[in-house]
């Protein structure tokens, strides 16, 4: 009951001087708004990245040729390529943890269609590629096992390629030339947009992996093999199985390093996510400083308020207020000022975050945990910076205070 009264008294005091109260809260409002906006956009970016990477294919393992130390440091065995179609066959045969296997044969070639030409990436893939990479077809059909077996000269185009070579037309059934080899277009990929790293996922032409390997690539080695695990929890097991199969296929003795490396999708997400997370934390810390400055502003105004109300404090003490009563009164005022500032700041911050998010196309994630933490922190700022003025008020001598002009 008494607390209700004290809070009501504190509110009355704040409302009596609206302009001053608002100016006092400004520091807190700005500080909180910045933190909320930054964290909201930061967490939104992280969510965007995660969505992007997971759109590249779930449960995905990517096997690259060469060990992780390759790149000049370890040139012992020369640049001898290490992945082959036999590896692909071996992976397809054995492990139970693996669902799809698709080699990645990637070439950069000039493609000609009628009078137009375009330089793009050619990827040789298996018929399970769509499943592995979570792609959909927007037109036509994908390769069949017969296409793969026959090394058929069929191609599926990405949206960007279609826009360049066949603007406004349906390319299914038409002919194109890749490296002077004639291909028939059998399908068009659904659009995927840009990756978080900026590359255009639609600027690609898919052909059967056998076709690419034997007809286009001069029998050069496969650059990568994509493997999808049966389920997310079996990823680690799948990774172990892949290494076992490949080490056996490559006849690597015990103790010698892999001459390939396996990366999982989770690694990619965690790296990108970590970078964004660090950046967000750093910027928020800087914004947090302005929150502390806001706290100093509150302390300042409370000191002025105490001095102005010296007479009033004297009256209250004469009437029976203890030092503790006065302390609590001014402390509550400071906390309420902070909290109201904090609430305004949160509203402003959320508004700014969504505004910027809409303008730049970034997602915004405002979690209740962040808001709760902000409220608690703001209240603490109020208590911390309001304490000194409140203590000063409670220590006044009533007789002198009553004489104060």
């Amino acid at each position, binding site marked *: 009951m008494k607390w209700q009264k004290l809070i009501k008294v504190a509110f009355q005091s704040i409302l009596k001087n609206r302009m001053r109260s608002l100016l006092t809260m400004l520091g807190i409002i700005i500080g909180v708004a910045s933190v909320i906006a930054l964290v909201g956009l930061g967490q939104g970016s992280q969510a965007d990245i995660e969505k992007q990477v997971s759109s590249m294919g779930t449960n995905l393992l990517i096997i690259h040729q060469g060990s992780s130390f390759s790149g000049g440091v370890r040139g012992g065995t020369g640049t001898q390529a290490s992945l082959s179609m036999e590896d692909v066959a071996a992976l397809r045969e054995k492990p139970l943890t693996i669902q799809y296997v698709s080699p990645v044969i990637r070439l950069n070639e000039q493609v000609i269609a009628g009078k137009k030409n375009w330089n793009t990436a050619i990827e040789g893939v298996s018929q399970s590629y769509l499943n592995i990479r979570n792609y959909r077809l927007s037109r036509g059909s994908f390769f069949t096992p017969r296409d793969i077996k026959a090394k058929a000269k069929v191609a599926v185009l990405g949206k960007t390629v279609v826009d360049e070579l066949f603007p406004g037309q349906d390319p299914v059934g038409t002919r194109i030339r890749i490296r002077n080899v004639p291909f028939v277009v059998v399908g068009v990929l659904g659009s995927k947009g840009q990756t978080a790293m900026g590359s255009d996922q639609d600027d690609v032409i898919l052909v059967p992996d056998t076709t690419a390997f034997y007809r286009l690539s001069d029998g050069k080695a496969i650059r990568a093999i994509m493997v999808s695990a049966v389920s997310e929890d079996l990823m680690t097991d799948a990774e172990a199985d892949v290494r076992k199969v490949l080490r056996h296929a490559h006849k690597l003795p015990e103790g010698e390093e892999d001459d390939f490396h396996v990366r999982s999708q989770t690694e990619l997400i965690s790296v990108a996510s970590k970078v964004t997370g660090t950046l967000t934390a750093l910027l928020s810390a800087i914004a947090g400083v302005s929150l502390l400055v806001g706290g100093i502003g509150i302390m300042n105004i409370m000191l002025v308020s105490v001095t102005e109300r010296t007479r009033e404090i004297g*009256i*209250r003490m*004469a*009437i*029976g207020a*203890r*030092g503790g009563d006065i302390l609590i009164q001014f402390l509550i005022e400071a906390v309420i000022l902070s909290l109201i500032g904090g609430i305004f700041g949160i509203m402003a911050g959320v508004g700014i975050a969504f505004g910027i998010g809409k303008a730049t196309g970034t997602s915004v994630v405002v979690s209740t945990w962040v808001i709760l933490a902000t409220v608690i922190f703001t209240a603490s700022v109020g208590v911390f910076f309001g304490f000194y003025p409140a203590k000063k008020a409670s220590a006044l001598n009533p*007789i002198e205070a009553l004489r104060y002009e």
Partner: protein
Amino acid sequence: MMDVIVLENIHKVFRLGGETVRALNGVSLTIHKGEYVAVMGASGSGKSTLMNVLGCLDQASMGGYRLEGLCVTAMNKHQLADVRNSKIGFVFQGFNLLPRTSALENVELPLLYSRHSSGVSHRDKARSALDKVGLSDRMDHHPNQLSGGQQQRVAIARALVNDPAIILADEPTGNLDSKTTLDILSVFKSLNDKGITLIMVTHEPDVASHAKRVITMRDGIIIDDRNVDQKDRVVAP
């Protein structure tokens, strides 16, 4: 007759700069319940210091003070605050009401700090106190909407709201014109008639003559203490 106030050889010493000031130099005093006492004296006589000691705003350097039987001299700051709240009602020369606050809320103020709660609501107690001083029709007014006399009445109601043992008035009519002074003094009289113990500090003999007993101070001691005869009272022509 019960003793409300018993002062025994009270001394109060201040150290200002390098000098020692003996504000009260051995004051002994007994005040019974229902008395109406005026304390007179020139500036520096010690009457203000005596008021502060009686009001438990300050503590004596030496000597004993019993208020309604309670030994006040041994109390700490918290206990003194409680005594001020429950046993003493102050009325000041400058009224000392909270600005931008209604009369009713001003009168309720002591109840906010009261540590004993009765069943009666604060609102009702405040209303009945304002009734006693005849201001029921101005409960929602703010001090800047009230005349000096009305403000002082609100202050008196505030002093009454906790049913104190004594009302301590420090130059209560100092800021009022002669007519309003008489108004306030008649409020005091009617309160005293109802049995309330009243102690008033003043430097004006006219005002002091309205009390029933006049104590005169000089240089920190009581030099005179007499009951006022009705016919000695000075009234406006």
